[in-house]
């Protein structure tokens, strides 16, 4: 049971949250003008790094708000979490 730091509610149990894939993947401005390849890139392709990764989570059983956080996929460590549309903290060391 991981403990996740919701930027609004503080540290809460993992079971209160839902995962929302990679952070900072924006909906394209003009989907109509994208090639099939570029659109497929948006809907299907995500990074899969070993190490620090920016992810999106939602505190479903709490404040119901979405936020971003840094997580290390190799060590399970969490870095800082932050609200959407705010400056992302630096990649943790």
């Amino acid at each position, binding site marked *: *049971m*991981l*403990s996740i730091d919701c930027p609004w509610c503080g540290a809460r149990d993992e079971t209160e949250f*839902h995962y*929302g894939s990679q952070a900072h993947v*924006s*909906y394209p401005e003009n*989907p*109509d003008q*994208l090639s*099939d390849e570029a*659109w*497929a890139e*948006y*809907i*299907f392709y995500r990074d899969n790094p070993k190490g620090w990764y920016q992810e*999106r989570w*939602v505190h*479903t059983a709490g404040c*119901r*708000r*979405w936020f971003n956080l840094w997580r290390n996929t190799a060590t*399970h*460590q*969490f870095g800082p979490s932050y609200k*959407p*549309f705010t400056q992302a903290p630096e990649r943790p060391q």
Partner: protein
Amino acid sequence: MSLVNFEFDAKILSGQKGEPLAAALLKNGIKTFTESTYLSRPRGVMALGAEEPCALVQIDSGAGEPMFPATQVELVAGLAARGLAGIGDLPNVNDDARYDKANRHVEVLIIGAGLAGLRAAKSAIKKNQRVMLIDDAPTPGGFASQSNQVIDPELLAVLEAPNLVHLQRTTAVGLYDQGYVVAIERRTDHLAANYDPKIARIRTWHIRAKEIILATGAFQRYLVFPNNDRPGIMLSHAAATYVDKYQVNIFKNAVVVTVDDQGYLDALRLHKNGVKVHAIVDVRSKVSGNLVNEVKSLGIELFFNSTITNSGADQNGELSSVEISQVDLSGKNIDKTKEISCDLLAVSGGWTPTVHLATFIGIKPKWIKEKAAFVLQDLPKGISAVGTVAGDFGKVANPPAIFFGILPEDELAQVSFIDLQRDATVRDLKRATGAGLTSIEHIKRYTTIGTAHDQGKTSGTTTIGLLSQLINKEPQEIGTLTFRPPYIPVPFAALAGRDRGELSDPIRTTPIHQWHQEAGAPFEDVGQWKRPWYFPLADEDMDQAVARECLAARNQVAVMDASTLGKIDIQGPDAAEFLDRIYTNMFSTLKINHSRYGLMCGVDGMVFDDGVTTRLGENHFLMTTTTSGAAKVLDWLEEWLQTEWPELKVYCTSVTEHWSTVAIVGPKSRELMKKLSPDLDVSNDAFPFMTNQFAKVAEVPARIARISFSGELAYEINVEAIYGLHVWNAVIEHGKEFGITPYGTETMHVLRAEKGFVIVGQETDGTQTPQDLAMDWIVSKKKDFIGKRSFSRSDTAREGRHQLVGVLPTDKKALLPEGSYLVAKDSSQAVVGSNHLGHVTSFYYSAELDRTFGLAILENGKNRIGEKLMVPIFDEKVEVEITEPIFYDKENLRRDG
């Protein structure tokens, strides 16, 4: 201490209350507790605690326990146990005991209340930290207490500190990231049988600690030689503790075999308690110091450069003699020197620190040659180790030998046990290395060493040591076995706690639930909701009830509780714009108090959910979702609002539980509506399809919607949840003269399928576009919405995708299981690989059509309409015709009555 009676293998025995069952059995002269799992060799007790590989028992008294080491069972009056040959039976009576869970956040968690743990607690308490100290034994003190040493009362006083939570009989079974530890506290098994049943038998602790201090100590290892498993052969510390602490007096003549100084200490303890120690057999060439002098002065014979190379047994298979031979440290050059008669062989094979918990989070123990042990060192932040587990073995005069036993050939290899629980021997290990295996993980799986209940607590390092000899690698290169939680076997009941039976998952019921129960309806689980399935009359079975309910809805009037539909209240100046982006069809053009069916897709263009949304005001909508999709849809809406379109002023609130919905369905529903709400103009002109009216129904305020999920004239009466049952009762009462018939989810499914209405999640599986479902009409060309771009992707736009169709068996009575495959008419019988063209998603008997029918998802379905296909069901093939996915009232003539 008091004497109590207990039962073992159907014999009545007596022993001291509170002592380990293993000690009580020994005192009763029982050395053989059970047989080994695979070879049926007699086995007794080898160790002291959770590490015990042999002495398993089944507990039949109290709540029962299918498998537990006798070393960890505390004797109570009335205990009934049986020796267990490795495989237990679940008790076949209900377990009435209570189990519960507790959470605790602390600054420091110390695992193990031996001297090292107590000292760590003392210093943490001084720092005014919130401390928790847990230990798996009945009393604190660990090794010192087992060794009958007096513990400094000042140290024991820390247990009284107000900032300390102290638990004995509590085993940490899991250690996870972020200082999370799960522990199992055994609270009642050691009490007399008549304890207060309100006390939970086991409490599962979920502990979060800023800092974890592992003071888990170490286990002694045994040595490998032929017939090293006989009852009477024990770890030396265990043997000395049974004799000294628990006054086991059945052993008369002992031999000690050792690789370290512990053997000498234990020899002295045995001697002091009246056991004649004939010899100490030490593999080392030279030892010095007071200990050795003391042993010599007692006349105990010393054999250096020697070990035990075989053992003899009496007629019961219990130890009667040992064979002593000269060996070098590789275990070779065996030169037999002597045979000694004895009834106890105390084995001191070195210490194996209890590193398991740390390895659960990926920590690799370090091999320290001088200590012949894997220890915990250089741990990550937040976790530390103290005492033996950290390699602090105290002052030792002579370093231990790195020696794990001998590796005999042929028949002797087959009785030289490495993992006693698994009956795995030197022969198995040699076969593994002979087959070319060198990885400890491969060898574990090939030989099964370390896979029993004890996970190789006593055998792990021995295996690694012998393997290092066989393949000429250092133990550090081989590494330890991967241990996994739980550290000891844990009953499922302990993990479930009180979340059993109806508490295992939340149950959601509507305000009308009680009426459904009283009407005798069976319930269907839809997500966490209990929905009435059908309402059988006297002797009806399900098919009869559903046929009757369907005919009532089509020909008279029927009523359904639709309260479970997900409802999301959406408000804000940009609500209409928001819905335009979410739904495939337009909502900004919807008039106030009008409703519209909407479909939403994922960005990949696949149907995600559907439902009717009503505009209650310029900036106010009420969305309905599928019953099971409500939470998912709300998350989805919030995701877009919060992460993509923060500029939209829209607020979403779940109101599913706030409203009760009673749907009245059928050609006579208008007359019934008139009765229920006499002031309401229910004519089709004043109250057309897909519009809403506000009126009183049975004297309570209601929103009435002309919505139909059956194709019939229908009204959905929405009232505040507290009025749900009241309105339902009024509908039943007023409906009597029209023959009102309540119906459940099954009839709802049949009615909608007759009209070809899909259920998201039944007809769809996340790979269907609206076009695949023949719903092109709902896809707006005028606006962008989530998923739209995907409709022009080559794969989504291509011809011949899997599409929704109807299926009609040629035999009108044939029933097809939902999920059945559709294959070409000339296809071979077996469905193999790619010859299936699609599958049946819904299938029912229609009373209205007096035949069976279904919906299916079929490859190139739109172009196969009119074709005949086959559905293989076991040895049969059922011929079906592919049709348009609509079977009833294609012209929508019935919805306006």
